[in-house]
């Protein structure tokens, strides 16, 4: 076996390439330039070496390198004219353009290093007899350009010779409606029209009193491409991922087309996508998300990770609640890659009858609401369902008499700017004299005697959560009232100076698993406080790991795909990072 593997290694090495296969970009300047040749860019000029007065042409220079090769060296040339009054190089931005000024002859010289060449140019007294402009009445889209060209026909009065010259550079250009289209008038862009807005504009060129025009029609910009973002995201199964389609038009504008494009997923078994652009992931794998509009498409690859759902486990299999109370319930998904995570916000909750209802306000949060007594033998069945997977919880609702309530702590020392949770427990007695207790934190009414010093949450998951004012010290009494019974806790808020912030949690996690971190603040007076719920949590690479539920599950992340992510906690002006490796 070792020798077999060794043979494979040898083969790989032998096939490991034969060197660079790129395209050279460097010019060979090691070979001496031995001669140059001047060529007029207009074939007509090349033959006659004559231009009409007040016209111009460009010249190019071809270099011969020791007879081995030729190359254009125009950009290295220094130009001179022995009779500048007849023709000269007057355009600084186009040094190889020679302009005829008055009738006569001149010798033009090109010099590259110590190599020279000459070109005899005649400037005639020819006058223009006809001029044409092209293209004729074109149509372009907003944002695009169109190069107009004018050619003139000249007749030399001395010889009656007729010649044709490109006058694009020598003519003066004008647009009748610059708000629709502009036209270039500089040496670098003469005759180049740019479509600014829809409409029409007449583009005119004038030379020696002769004017020719072309009607330019500008239409709406054309969609050229669609970009789908986020690009190539990794997303857990049983999740939602909103995509955005951004179209780029011929005028360079970018438009959000999310609601206009037709969305599709190449593999509906892996992910489906709604017309809004939000994809719902079902099973592991890759699916291409396409956005199409007017025959133009854009796409990205959605990678679905985290295993396929194999089962649902409720947080409690059976529970007894007092009529009128609420209790939190959750569902955990088990997945094919041996991971588990909270899917409370994903499953569909239902109750078999109206004695108990389930409300899911968002995130991974769901509440059982006990509204009517159920017969002992017929509890209400609560079902959590996703696809073909279901899990049930039986809820029995009774109506015992409330005897008293108590708060978990009789006093609370709270650092300014932090929070702590209090729980309220009710003690009940039924008709048989049986005493039972139940957590009524979420059912009680919570108040504070001095909310500016210490406030207390009184809605949803915040019930019983006492928060000390950001600055300042003082005391307050927190009262929980339920069923006409009350209990109180004395809260003292103290200002402490934070010394350090620490963060603890696992260094690694498997894709699909949910892991928890805690943040602890240490103060100068030697005390410390778990501030996991008070810290601000962020993560830098959502394709690798993302926040589980920033509202209901602070400090928790869900591993998405292999990689490394930096998880950060910020509190009291301090921050702490932890690198999490997702396997």
């Amino acid at each position: 076996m070792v020798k077999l593997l060794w043979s494979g290694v040898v083969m790989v090495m032998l096939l490991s390439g034969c060197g660079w296969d790129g395209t050279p970009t460097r010019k060979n300047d090691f070979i001496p330039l031995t001669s140059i040749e001047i060529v007029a860019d207009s074939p007509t000029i090349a033959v006659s070496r004559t231009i009409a007065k007040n016209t111009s042409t460009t010249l190019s220079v071809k270099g011969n390198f020791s007879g081995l090769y030729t190359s254009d060296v125009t950009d290295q040339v220094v130009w001179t004219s022995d009779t500048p009054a007849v023709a000269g190089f007057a355009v600084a931005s186009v040094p190889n353009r020679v302009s005829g000024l008055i009738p006569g002859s001149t010798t033009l010289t090109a010099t590259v290093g110590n190599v020279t060449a000459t070109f005899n140019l005649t400037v005639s007294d020819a006058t223009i007899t006809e001029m044409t402009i092209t293209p004729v009445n074109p149509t372009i889209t907003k944002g695009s350009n169109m190069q107009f060209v004018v050619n003139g026909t000249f007749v030399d009065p001395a010889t009656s010779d007729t010649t044709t010259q490109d006058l694009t550079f020598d003519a003066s250009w004008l647009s009748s409606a610059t708000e629709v289209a502009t036209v270039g008038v500089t040496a670098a862009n003469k005759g180049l029209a740019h479509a600014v807005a829809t409409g029409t504009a007449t583009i005119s060129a004038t030379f020696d009193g002769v004017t020719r025009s072309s009607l330019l029609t500008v239409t709406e910009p054309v969609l050229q491409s669609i970009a789908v973002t986020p690009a190539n995201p990794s997303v857990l199964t049983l999740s939602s991922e909103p995509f955005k389609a951004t179209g780029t038009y011929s005028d360079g504008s970018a438009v959000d087309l999310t609601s206009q494009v037709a969305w599709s997923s190449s593999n509906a078994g892996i992910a489906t996508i709604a017309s809004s652009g939000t994809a719902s992931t079902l099973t592991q794998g890759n699916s291409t998300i396409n956005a199409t509009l007017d025959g133009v498409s854009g796409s990205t690859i959605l990678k679905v990770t985290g295993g396929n759902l194999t089962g649902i486990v409720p947080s409690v299999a059976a529970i007894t609640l007092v009529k009128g109370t609420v209790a939190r319930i959750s569902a955990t998904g088990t997945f094919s890659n041996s991971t588990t995570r909270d899917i409370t916000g994903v499953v569909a909750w239902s109750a078999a009858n109206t004695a108990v209802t389930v409300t899911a306000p968002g995130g991974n949060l769901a509440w059982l609401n006990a509204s009517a007594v159920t017969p002992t033998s017929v509890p209400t069945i609560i079902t959590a369902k996703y696809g073909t997977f279901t899990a049930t919880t039986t809820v029995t609702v009774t109506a015992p008499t409330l005897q008293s309530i108590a708060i978990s702590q009789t006093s609370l020392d709270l650092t300014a700017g932090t929070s702590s949770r209090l729980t309220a427990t009710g003690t009940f007695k039924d008709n048989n004299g049986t005493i039972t207790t139940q957590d009524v934190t979420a059912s009680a009414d919570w108040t504070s005697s001095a909310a500016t010093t210490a406030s207390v949450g009184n809605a949803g998951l915040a019930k019983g959560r006492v928060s000390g004012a950001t600055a300042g010290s003082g005391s307050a009494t927190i009262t929980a009232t339920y069923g006409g019974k009350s209990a109180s806790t004395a809260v003292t808020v103290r200002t402490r100076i934070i010394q350090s912030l620490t963060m603890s949690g696992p260094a690694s996690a498997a894709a699909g698993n949910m892991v928890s971190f805690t943040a602890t603040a240490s103060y100068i007076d030697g005390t410390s406080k778990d501030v996991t719920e008070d810290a601000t949590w962020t993560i830098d690479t959502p394709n690798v790991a993302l926040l589980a539920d920033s509202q209901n599950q602070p400090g928790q992340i869900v591993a998405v795909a292999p990689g490394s992510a930096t998880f950060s906690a910020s509190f009291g002006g301090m921050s702490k990072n932890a690198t999490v490796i997702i396997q």
Partner: protein
Amino acid sequence: MSHRYDITVPSLFRWRGLTKGRNAMRRTIQMIIALFLPVLLCGQVNAQHSGPYVGAFIGGNALMKAKSSDDKGTFSLTFDPALQGNAVLGWDLPPGSSAGEGRIELEYSRRSNPLDKETFAEGSFAGGGNVTAESLLLNCYGVFHDKTLWAPYLGIGAGVVRIKASDLTVAGQPLSNDSDVVFAYQVGTGIDITLTDHLSLDLGYRFFGSTRPQFTEVNGRKFYMDYLSHSAVFGLRVGF
């Protein structure tokens, strides 16, 4: 053990009337086959050597087409293959060594490749001159011994190399004449054939590379070039 050299290959020595170069090449091939055939055909393995050894190798070297670049762009250098020579001084680890079975050695090698052509944006031009690399590497090889005649090995090495661009020319015009010392590395594999308790034949392949040496062009510019080569070598190691 001594019976291993009884086989002769008379037909291999019948070539006549060939050119000098061909004769030299064929004599080399004859020697290789004469050395290898008995080994491949015979039976038992000699005792595995441990301790110090010296060795000498010769082989063919193909320097890969090199990307070269300066502040004016990139161009390529293509080289002719050439001979190379290596000398090694090392230590065979004993069987069952805690470091594994294999050897550690110090290797000097020299390879000099003629520049065949340069390719610029305008095309290719005849080259001239040589690029010579003299390296000193520390190599570590793992050897996979079993009860057969030959044992494959695989290893890596690292060290330094002095690369000299000697009178490089482009179509007869000077390009560079300079040298540089850079980091070098090597991956090697091959087979060890134990001839006697103290003598072994090595037939190997080497992939040799370095960080990019910098040379001065005739016009004063600096250019960097790749240096990556494939080599096939054979040689003898004598243990003590």
